[in-house]
């Protein structure tokens, strides 16, 4: 099976932002089955540090499953999966939790703690890592400004609009300065203008050296991204992974 591989390249400002080096994520002939249903079969993929990938395919093709494997919510039923150079099969629950602190995840449904104000939700990764959020107040304010939610700092998640929740999820995903950003249908609940705003934020993160993997079926979103940043588009079809691009 051919491995879909990413390479380093120069960014728009000429800075060498996509470094060669050990893969952030590496799938080797990975399969995932739920009961008797094979959801992914024989997937091989390497994500180089600083790369920008889209994962596309029809609904139910296995995009979310692949992302869940990346942040170890699911474990391969066959094959070998490495995250940050470590084989996930040898990881304990604490190892997985520590690895997740290096991954920022943005979900379509944005998981928040509804009883806490936005600032506390954003600083949740700091809290669970044992860091004092009050010591990061400045950073938090800058982050709120970056996603345009300074005025909504005290609001609780149910009071936020879909777009605000997506931006808040992105802010929470990056507060720990993760090496990898995973986004599952980030534009699913927002209008086109907000989609472009989110894309802008993701591109900025990629330019800072973060590896980005976005699962989406929104081809316009992918086209908009391709015009701003070198991307690779992966398509899941028939439970396996292929490089796409020419038709986009």
């Amino acid at each position: 099976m051919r491995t879909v591989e990413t390479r380093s390249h120069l960014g728009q400002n000429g800075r060498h932002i996509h470094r060669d080096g050990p893969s952030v994520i590496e799938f080797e002939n990975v399969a995932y089955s739920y009961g008797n249903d094979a959801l992914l079969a024989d997937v091989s993929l390497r994500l180089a540090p600083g790369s920008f990938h889209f994962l596309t395919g029809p609904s139910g093709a296995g995009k979310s499953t692949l992302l869940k494997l990346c942040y170890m919510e699911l474990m391969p039923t066959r094959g070998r999966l490495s995250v940050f150079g470590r084989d996930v099969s040898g990881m304990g629950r604490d190892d997985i939790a520590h690895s997740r602190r290096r991954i920022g995840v943005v979900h379509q449904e944005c998981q928040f703690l509804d009883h806490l104000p936005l600032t506390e939700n954003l600083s949740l990764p700091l809290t669970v890592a044992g860091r004092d959020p009050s010591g990061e107040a400045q950073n938090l304010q800058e982050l709120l400004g970056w996603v345009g939610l300074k005025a909504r700092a005290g609001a609780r998640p149910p009071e936020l609009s879909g777009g605000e929740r997506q931006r808040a999820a992105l802010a929470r995903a990056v507060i720990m300065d993760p090496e990898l950003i995973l986004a599952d249908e980030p534009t699913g609940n927002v209008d086109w203008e907000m989609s472009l705003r989110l894309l802008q934020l993701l591109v900025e993160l990629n330019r800072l050296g973060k590896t980005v993997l976005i699962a989406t079926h929104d081809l316009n979103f992918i086209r908009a991204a391709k015009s701003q940043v070198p991307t690779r588009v992966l398509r899941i079809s028939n439970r396996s992974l292929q490089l796409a691009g020419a038709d986009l």
Partner: protein
Amino acid sequence: MIRAADLAELLTGHTGADRVVPPTGYTARLTVFTSAAMAFLAVFALALSLATDRLASRWSEALARTATVRISAPAGQEDEQVAAALDVLRTTPGVAEARPLTDAERRELLEPWFGPELPLDRLRVPALIEVVETADGVDAAGLRARLAGEAPGALFDDHTQWRRPLVRAAGRLRTLGLFSLFLISAATAAMITLAAQAALAANARVIATLRLVGALDTFIARAFVRRFTVRALTGALAGTLLGMAAVAALPRADAAGGFLTGLGFAGAQWLLPLLVPPVVALVAFGATRLAAFRQLRETT
């Protein structure tokens, strides 16, 4: 395994972990109520256990050192046989005191069955000699043999026949009290485990979010464990104080008779119920911790 560090953190608290779980819910009220009710019952079980312990000791001591000589002699020989029996008793080693009961005392003994103003002179009631033994006690078989020779109508009763079942019954009551304490602890653990499981299930989304952002199981468990322990401690404190007040308000049974003892605590025993709240808190800590880790293992 409960570590000292976990307990220390339990007391000092952890602001972050405390806030991540929504503060309200029916499980909170359920835990407080259950702990209060169980602590209340535990105080009563403890009081019962201690009271039966006192009862067993008192019965054993009181009955072990007293005996009775009953004299059923034909008319006209009673006084003679009483005098002979008293002579035998006064010269028997282990007898501290021996005196015949007066008519008034015999009437008092029979009063519960026949009512007041019993005409003793018209009834054939045997004469009774109360014997108080020394700590060494008497040789019952030897005394019986001597009485048979000197006063054929005299029968020595050292109360052994009915003392043993009484002491055994008191001992069983005490065991029952201790077993009740064990059952109460087990029921408390079971109910708090159920409440914790309900809380964990109700907060499945919160747990998933925390795991997503890299929370360790210990962090998530701590949030639930501390909350349930504090609730259990609060409820148990209230239940214990209420139980102690109820025990204190019970009528004293001492006045009812020599053998009876009040259900309650005496002296330093009043400090024992104060152990109930920390024990309930420890039970809650262990039960919630176990439930939390078991449930978290099922979460990715």
